[in-house]
């Protein structure tokens, strides 16, 4: 509220004869816009710095010799502005600019992807001449050229407004495209060898020559969206539809925990493109390429459309009717429940409503707390940390990030793991006073772009740094300082304990930033072995009583012992102690030990998989039940802020939500025999009530806030760093934003903009191994090896090697069987026959 009440200096000016009061420093074009006077413009964008590049917004200002660009002119006291509506001079100037812009603009509109939603087309119709006086030959360029595998540049159409270059420089920090050449040859281009007379292929395709730098930014799609003409277009949407074919639905991105609002455009039952939505509180008007283009998995031919049941005779999966499959699942789970119990792996891709359905299903139908959403390396300490400091808390917002004086980031690489958070951090740094301190092994490009100070940290040492490093404490001492921790800190013993203690000690606010869209919601929905919905501790009888009241069951019906986490469920299943597994969208390759996870799926007596597409889980499942992808259901994601991001169905299909499928399974299951009401109520069927998203929202909405005590934060002591011998190093690893993620499978065009996988080593280690940039380096463990080109990286501590977690040629979990902080062997060159063979078997 202080912002609103703050007194601002104002000036009074006249626009088109109307007196108006505006904030000092405001631009004339914005003030006019607020009054409802539309001045045509191309280069002007409210989130970019003023440029005055296109000259379309010329207005007549009294006392000025020539018309002035209203997008760069700030208001002044007593200024008299006349727009094209009241001034002949302004109208003539704008008409002249439009004529010049069109002089070299090709008559491409019928084939141009922008046709029908093109600001140039629209404004040429409203403000332009009816006929052309230009009879000469128009300027020609080769068209279009690929400036990345995803983005196409047509220089003929470009009007040099520089929105794209300004976005790339100011917002994303990836200055891959720029203005080149001069005069009538001035053009937007990428840094290409052949353009500068080098040894390029000369065919105009960037990335072919040795020194070519393609437009591989994670945010390149935004330039396509803000291009006011059809100069930048996307390969994926190329010629697919016209604006009038499309039905637009506001939705939310399902990829990461940033929670971007989006617009999904579909035609004839198929989503054709997605655009960044306008939500100033979250993603402003931007999104990342993964969110924009990573939706092909929904239409993949591998989608499971009918339930599958493992045939008793052949042992193969076969298609079955819903009634048969539901019955098989219910009977199998009932039997497994009595035979060792069933573990639930919920995964991080669920909406809040679906996660709640899993949490309720585990407690009521399976009678267990063996449920965990974490499909990644994890620890028991993390579960305690989440219960103590994350569940039900929404303390830090994007606005806080932007306005914070300083932020310490640990266990998180914002550009790779939460793109929009990265953009906000960068905005805070460039436009406000944010100072970022990174607790990381090296200064990544993302950290570099936000001017972060690095505290070089060997993976596993974060706990000590957070607890002891004076620089961290000093950075957090300013009021409003933020401590942002990522999910990767879970694998460092004591790190999350140290983070919570540090926040308490310094008064800094703490935010936990997970990677997947459903992670945060799953905590609050109760998909943890130690938490019931609403952040209620399982061990607290009062909390259980609140839930049993809400679920209309007897107190004592809910299992009271904290359950097993993902690792323990997998270990128990692999040891044959579990009767069954219920698995949602989980890829075993993401777990700490993929091989053990697959053994667990094999050894578990009965596996039910709720999936979109065939996966390592469905291949081993006894019953596979297809569920709806995000576009075909409504739901809510909780982003890392703890902000609800509800979305509606984009495509109306017959696909069912996880909650609806679980409700149908539960309805066919017996009440557990240890249930107090089992004796009086021998009838079949458990009422879950999760079939309808609105019903779940009502149920969650009417649940009173918990009065149970919040558990205290864990206090785990840091572990000593492992010793590294000669030719050994500590492994650092995290995911690239665009990698071999299940949701990006088969998206070759998008994969083309991924960062090349490299093994990063420090200069000392490189010298010891005798490698330079580009030489092959092999990182090995007893299980297998990964060979990647080396990149000698500044700041990287001496005995550390970094690998991308799940990129082509570098699947750390599957090939090495270890996680960050483990000691790995290093050698120059390719793996020997011994290691190579073990990689094949892995």
């Amino acid at each position: 509220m202080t912002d609103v009440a703050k007194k601002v200096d104002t000036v009074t000016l006249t626009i088109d004869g109307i007196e108006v009061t505006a904030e000092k420093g405001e631009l004339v074009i914005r003030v006019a816009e607020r009054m409802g006077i539309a001045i045509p413009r191309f280069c002007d964008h409210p989130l970019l710095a003023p440029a005055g590049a296109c000259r379309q917004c010329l207005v007549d200002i009294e006392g000025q010799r020539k018309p002035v660009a209203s997008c760069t002119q700030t208001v002044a006291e007593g200024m008299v502005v006349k727009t094209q509506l009241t001034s002949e001079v302004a109208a003539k100037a704008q008409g002249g600019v439009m004529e010049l812009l069109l002089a070299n603009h090709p008559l491409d509109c019928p084939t141009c992807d922008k046709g029908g939603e093109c600001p140039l087309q629209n404004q040429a119709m409203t403000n332009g001449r009816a006929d052309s006086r230009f009879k000469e030959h128009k300027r020609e360029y080769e068209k279009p050229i690929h400036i990345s595998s995803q983005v196409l540049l047509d220089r003929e159409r470009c009007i040099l407004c520089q929105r794209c270059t300004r976005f790339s420089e100011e917002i994303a920090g990836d200055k891959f495209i720029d203005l080149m050449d001069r005069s009538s040859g001035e053009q937007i281009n990428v840094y290409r060898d052949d353009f500068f007379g080098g040894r390029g292929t000369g065919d105009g395709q960037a990335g072919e020559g040795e020194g070519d730098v393609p437009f591989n930014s994670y945010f390149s799609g935004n330039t396509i969206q803000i291009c006011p003409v059809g100069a930048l277009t996307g390969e994926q949407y190329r010629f697919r539809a016209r604006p009038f074919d499309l039905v637009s639905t506001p939705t939310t991105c399902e990829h990461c925990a940033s929670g971007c609002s989006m617009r999904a455009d579909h035609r004839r039952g198929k989503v054709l493109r997605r655009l960044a939505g306008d939500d100033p509180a979250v993603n402003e008007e931007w999104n990342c390429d993964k969110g924009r283009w990573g939706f092909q998995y929904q239409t993949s031919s591998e989608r499971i459309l009918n339930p599958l049941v493992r045939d008793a005779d052949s042992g193969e999966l076969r298609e079955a009717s819903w009634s048969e499959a539901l019955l098989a699942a219910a009977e199998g789970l009932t039997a497994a429940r009595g035979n060792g119990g069933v573990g639930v792996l919920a995964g991080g891709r669920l909406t809040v409503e679906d996660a709640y359905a899993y949490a309720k299903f585990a407690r009521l139908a399976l009678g267990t707390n063996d449920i965990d959403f974490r499909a990644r390396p994890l620890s028991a300490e993390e579960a305690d940390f989440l219960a103590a400091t994350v569940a039900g808390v929404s303390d830090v917002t994007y606005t806080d990030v932007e306005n914070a004086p300083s932020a310490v980031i640990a266990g998180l690489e914002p550009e790779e793991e939460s793109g929009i958070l990265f953009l906000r951090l960068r905005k805070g740094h460039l436009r406000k006073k944010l100072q970022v301190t990174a607790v990381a092994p090296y200064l990544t490009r993302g950290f570099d772009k936000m001017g972060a100070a690095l505290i070089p940290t060997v993976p596993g040492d974060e706990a000590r740094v957070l607890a002891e490093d004076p620089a961290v404490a000093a950075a957090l001492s300013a009021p409003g300082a933020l401590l942002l921790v990522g999910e990767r800190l879970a694998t460092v013993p004591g790190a999350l304990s140290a983070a919570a203690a540090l926040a308490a000690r310094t008064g800094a606010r703490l935010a936990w930033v997970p990677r997947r869209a459903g992670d945060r919601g799953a905590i609050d929905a109760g998909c943890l072995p130690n938490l019931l919905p609403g952040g209620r501790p399982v061990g607290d009888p009062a909390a259980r009583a609140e839930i049993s009241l809400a679920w209309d069951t007897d107190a004592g019906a809910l299992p009271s012992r904290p359950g097993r986490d993902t690792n323990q469920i997998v270990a128990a299943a692999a040891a044959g102690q579990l009767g069954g597994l219920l698995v949602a969208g989980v890829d075993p390759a993401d777990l700490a030990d993929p091989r053990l996870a697959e053994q667990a799926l094999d050894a578990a007596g009965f596996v039910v998989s709720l999936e979109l597409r065939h996966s390592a889980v469905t291949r081993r499942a006894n019953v596979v039940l297809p569920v709806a992808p995000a576009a075909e259901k409504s739901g809510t994601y909780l982003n890392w802020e703890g902000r609800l991001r509800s979305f509606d169905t984009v495509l109306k299909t017959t696909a069912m939500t996880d909650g609806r499928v679980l409700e149908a399974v539960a309805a066919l299951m017996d009440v557990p025999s240890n249930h107090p009401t089992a004796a009086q109520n021998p009838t079949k069927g458990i009422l879950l009530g999760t079939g309808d998203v609105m019903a779940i929202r009502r149920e969650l909405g009417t649940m009173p806030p918990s009065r149970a005590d919040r558990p205290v934060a864990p206090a785990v002591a840091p572990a000593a760093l492992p010793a590294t011998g000669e030719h050994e190093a500590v492994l650092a690893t995290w995911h690239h934003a665009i990698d071999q993620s299940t949701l990006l499978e088969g998206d070759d065009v998008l994969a083309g903009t991924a960062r090349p996988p490299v093994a990063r080593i420090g200069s000392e280690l490189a010298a010891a191994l005798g490698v330079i940039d580009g030489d092959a380096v092999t990182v090995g463990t007893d299980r297998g090896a990964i060979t990647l080109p080396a990149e000698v990286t500044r700041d990287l501590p001496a005995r550390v090697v970094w690998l991308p977690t799940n990129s082509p040629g570098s699947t750390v979990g599957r090939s090495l069987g270890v996680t960050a902080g483990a000691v790995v062997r290093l050698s120059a060159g390719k793996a020997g026959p011994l290691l190579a063979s073990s990689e094949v078997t892995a």
Partner: protein
Amino acid sequence: MGTFTGSFKGFGVTFAHMFRKVITTDYPFTPPTPAPRYHGRHILNRHPDGLEKCIGCELCAWACPADAIYVEGANNTDEQRFSPGERYAGIYQINYARCIFCGLCIEACPTRSLTMSNEYELARDNRQDLIFTKKELLAPLLPGMEQPPHPMRLGDTDKDYYVGALENPGTSVGAERAPWATNEAEDATGQASKEAV
């Protein structure tokens, strides 16, 4: 008036018609030829080398008041070229259960690809057959034409095709006419059919 003379007067009208020219058409044995600009079924024309004139721009679909046209654009490549320029119609359908033959689509067509023939025999016994695709709509290959995909033969760029199209009307000559227009049969409206287009 007596009954007798009254009958004569009535039959007289009938009798007089026996000497007038018959306006009944002997369809389907001698089908009438419609006026030259009659709005019949559509044709997707070709350039003289056989490439399609249609660029898949969907302006016809946009103009269509009956929502009868469905187009999906696709990308021409050097290996697979169906039309000059970057874009061609991957899918082109006209649903004759919906078409009202208003001709707004041909007015909208920027490449003069879509024109209308004089063919009116469009009755089908099921709805599916009323959806005409590129297979039915594309003009037949005339001598000297080559079945796409093939490279551009008339010039290096698409502009050579579009500029040349002013002198070279392509294959709409002939193809616009229904098969019977070349028949000798002529009737009251037939005298103009030879000078059409």
